[in-house]
């Protein structure tokens, strides 16, 4: 197939499905077509094609791209053109990928349902009445709904893994520093990572190898020479897997637990040693996270002051009134709440009790995980305590929403790589997910182990090729 044909198919699928899914907030067909044409010409001339030639990719709306708007699905950034591309975008373009559009997300990546988008909520391809998860819900729905094979999302707590799990696809959070954050609008810089969502493990490998590596524009990145497969002789015998008891205690959904146990049995069949261990309660990690993430966010979002971009209330002469009004108009409620919370935990007299203690506790969690990985190769758990929940469930469910990230958060705090992999559907047809977390820079092992899980359990991505209009109504 030519790149143009692939792109045409992709466009047809989007036009057919996105009106139902609402995964995209912007498309860039013209540029994708131009790119596809140049790739086809290259091929016609017999030239070597780049590794991702002709692969349609969607990017989350918090990743900067030259000539695209960058809105983070916030009113604040309506019509904002950043005028530069994120490092990952430059790398994707160089690798020959066709970037077809920008995906919906919770405003400023704050949320876990994509309902907090300033545009509209995105729907779960498996059940239009359910959320796709978030904040990378648009990317997860675009892949799970079969529009694109590959999308980029971003994580702070579990914003890739949770929606990947809800939509039945693979989602990878890389080791902190493996993928450049330059061009990713920061939520909480010490936690943020860009990462891929895909319907296929090979695609995940491919995109990871293309977007990783040291970047002079992001000083927290490291070299990624280590991204190599060990070869065909991956031997699962004797591998040691830990399942933290405290993680399982968070899971109330029977089916989620049963499915995990089923997969674990399959793994034991091929010689993997699985052991239940005791680990810091994820609740404690969540508490630490709920201090550090808003604290950093309050600072990262301070640049949104209405002067260089964003609402500029004309009537206001006074600076304080100007900035207050600008931020009041530009930000949604969730964002304001988190900024407020973050400001409080950094201010005296609360700072010692909250922020300073959270920093200490974060180090303890990091240390504890470090110790755990001396004895085990991987930590395994369900990806989320429940499958996707209903859209617009209202405030009373807000705790559950926050809790849906709970199993992802300890690894995020420690900057560890983790992958969310599909493990079939529940009795209502909703995807269930498994999470594997490894020590720093263990992505090659995580991906190879994921292949093993797929082989032994028989569960792979659950991509919906036909969207059921009636479901969930």
């Amino acid at each position, binding site marked *: 197939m030519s790149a143009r044909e692939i792109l045409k198919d992709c466009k047809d699928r989007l036009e057919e499905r996105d009106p139902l899914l609402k995964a995209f907030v912007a498309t860039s067909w013209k540029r994708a077509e131009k790119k596809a044409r140049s790739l086809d010409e290259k091929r016609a001339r017999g030239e070597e094609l780049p590794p991702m030639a002709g692969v349609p990719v969607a990017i989350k709306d918090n990743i900067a791209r030259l000539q695209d708007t960058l809105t983070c699905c916030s009113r604040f950034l309506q019509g904002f053109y950043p*005028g530069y591309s994120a490092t990952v975008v430059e790398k994707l373009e160089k690798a020959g990928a066709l970037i077809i559009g920008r995906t919906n997300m919770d405003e400023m990546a704050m949320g876990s349902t994509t309902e907090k988008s300033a545009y509209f909520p995105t729907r779960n391809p498996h059940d239009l009445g359910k959320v796709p998860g978030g904040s990378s819900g648009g990317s997860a729905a675009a892949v799970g709904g079969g529009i694109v094979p590959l999308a980029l999302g971003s994580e702070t707590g579990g914003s890739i893994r949770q929606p990947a799990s809800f939509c039945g696809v693979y989602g990878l959070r890389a080791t902190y520093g493996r993928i450049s954050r330059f061009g990713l609008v920061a939520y*909480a810089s010490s936690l943020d990572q860009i990462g891929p969502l895909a319907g296929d493990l090979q695609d995940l490998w491919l995109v990871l190898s293309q977007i990783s590596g040291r970047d002079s524009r992001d000083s927290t990145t490291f070299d990624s020479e280590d991204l190599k497969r060990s070869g065909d002789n991956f031997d699962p015998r004797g591998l040691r897997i830990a399942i933290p008891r405290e993680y399982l205690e968070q899971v109330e959904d029977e089916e989620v637990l049963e499915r995990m146990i089923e997969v674990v049995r399959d793994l034991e069949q091929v010689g993997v040693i699985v052991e239940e261990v005791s680990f810091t309660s994820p609740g404690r990690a969540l508490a630490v996270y709920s201090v550090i993430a808003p604290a950093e966010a309050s600072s990262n979002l301070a640049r949104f002051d209405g002067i260089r971009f964003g609402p500029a209330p004309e009537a206001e002469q006074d600076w304080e009134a100007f900035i207050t009004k600008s931020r009041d108009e530009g930000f949604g409620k969730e964002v304001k709440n988190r900024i407020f919370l973050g400001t409080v935990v950094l201010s005296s007299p609360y700072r010692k009790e909250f922020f300073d203690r959270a920093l200490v506790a974060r180090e303890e969690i990091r240390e504890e995980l470090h110790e755990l990985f001396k004895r085990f190769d991987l930590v395994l758990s369900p990806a989320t305590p429940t499958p996707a929940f209903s859209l617009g469930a209202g405030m009373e469910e807000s705790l559950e929403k926050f809790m849906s990230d709970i199993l992802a958060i300890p690894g995020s705090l420690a900057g560890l790589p983790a992958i969310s992999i599909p493990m079939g559907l529940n009795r209502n047809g909703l995807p269930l997910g498994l999470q594997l977390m490894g020590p720093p820079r263990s992505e090659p092992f995580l991906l190879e182990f994921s292949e093993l899980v797929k082989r032994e359990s028989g569960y792979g991505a659950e991509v919906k090729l036909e969207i059921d209009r009636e479901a969930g109504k």
Partner: protein
Amino acid sequence: MSCKWETIIGLEIHLQLKTRSKIFCSCSTDFSAPANTNTCPICLGWPGSMPALNQKAVLLALRGAVALNCKINRESSFDRKNYFYPDLPKGFQITQYFRPLGFEGFFQVGENKVGIQRVHLEEDAGKTIYNGEEVEIDYNRAGIPLVEIVTEPDLVSPDQARDFLRELRLLLLYLGISDCNMEEGSLRCDANISISTGGEKTGENQVELKNLNSFQAIARALEYEQNRQKALKKGGEEIARETRGWDTTEEKTFLLRSKEESVDYRYFPEPDLPVLVLEEGLIDSVRMDLPEKPQERKKRWEREWKIEKEETEVLISQQARADFFEKTARLAPPREAAKWIKENLVNFDFPPEISPEELGDIINRVRAGELSTSRGKDVLQLCLESGKNPARIIQEKGWTQVSDEDYIEKLVDRVLEENPGVVDDYLSGKDKAIRFLIGQAMKLSQGQANPGLVWDLMERKLEERKNYG
């Protein structure tokens, strides 16, 4: 009740580092460029942009910290200082709060050893321009590397504070880390001042004076503030903790804001920049590379070359001038060299249109009697104007001074013969008549005769006539 008032002053100095590019991006540091032209997504705080540290700025700051005898953190780090201001693009300033580059240093000024609390790196903000009703912001300055130097409250008078800053500025200029131009704002100074009734190291209620932009402003503002606080204390009033500005026209300090309403900067570690680790051996190599400090150089001149303090002050105040002097002093007697430079070259930009070798040559010729002092000055002047060397000027002008005694005797005899009237005047007691006769001799020699010899001989011959008629 009589009590002794003690003034306690500490300074905070901000210095723009002399780098070509900004501290976290590759924009030029030339902030005189048209407004907002030296900007990019990073220094404008565009969403998604990230800082990348300029290593040149680190080296310059390190040079300053080492020269100020600081202890150096092999691992220092960056933090965010959060506050909202229109010219602060990101809503926070990246600075070094928890672990500064340098700490616990000192700087010796004369007999005074002033403690240096910290030396740290940070970024500058943009510039707000008030244009009538309009407020304009120029972000060219945003992200220019700054070094902040904070002294201990070791200064005891406004004059001492001013002198300290003068000496510090001189040192920083010698280090080549900043232009230190107070008018252009590449050196800015704030001061903390409090009055204590003895004993405690800092007065409990400090007043901070902001933006003192000249040495005069520093001394005057501190003086004013010292008197204001003393008067308040005498009247039994408490001194409020506050930040005050200096009104240069009214010559008064005025309230900017009360410390009670002070901002909580919510400092926390900058997550986008890793810990700044200095390579093994870097601190030593920076130390080895330091130039001789101006204060030490001056003392050496006074000690070894017996140069007057009045002259060393002038010579040291510009590094190029001091270097010029140092070279000249190795070619001609140092005291003469100092005098010549101070008297003839202070108004010139250094290096001038004359080399130390050439100036040494002129000085040596004058000393050897080949040139009169005033001829020597003429030669120097022509060197500066034409760029020609002294030997060539002397040759072209035919200014070689003649000290040949036979020639001078003939000259004197001829003048005495041609001016009998004047000679009679002298003999009858008009001593001043000799000046006319000497003038005539010099004129006949076209200025080349050694005037000292002419004078001696003329006097001797006249005295002979007086005695032996």
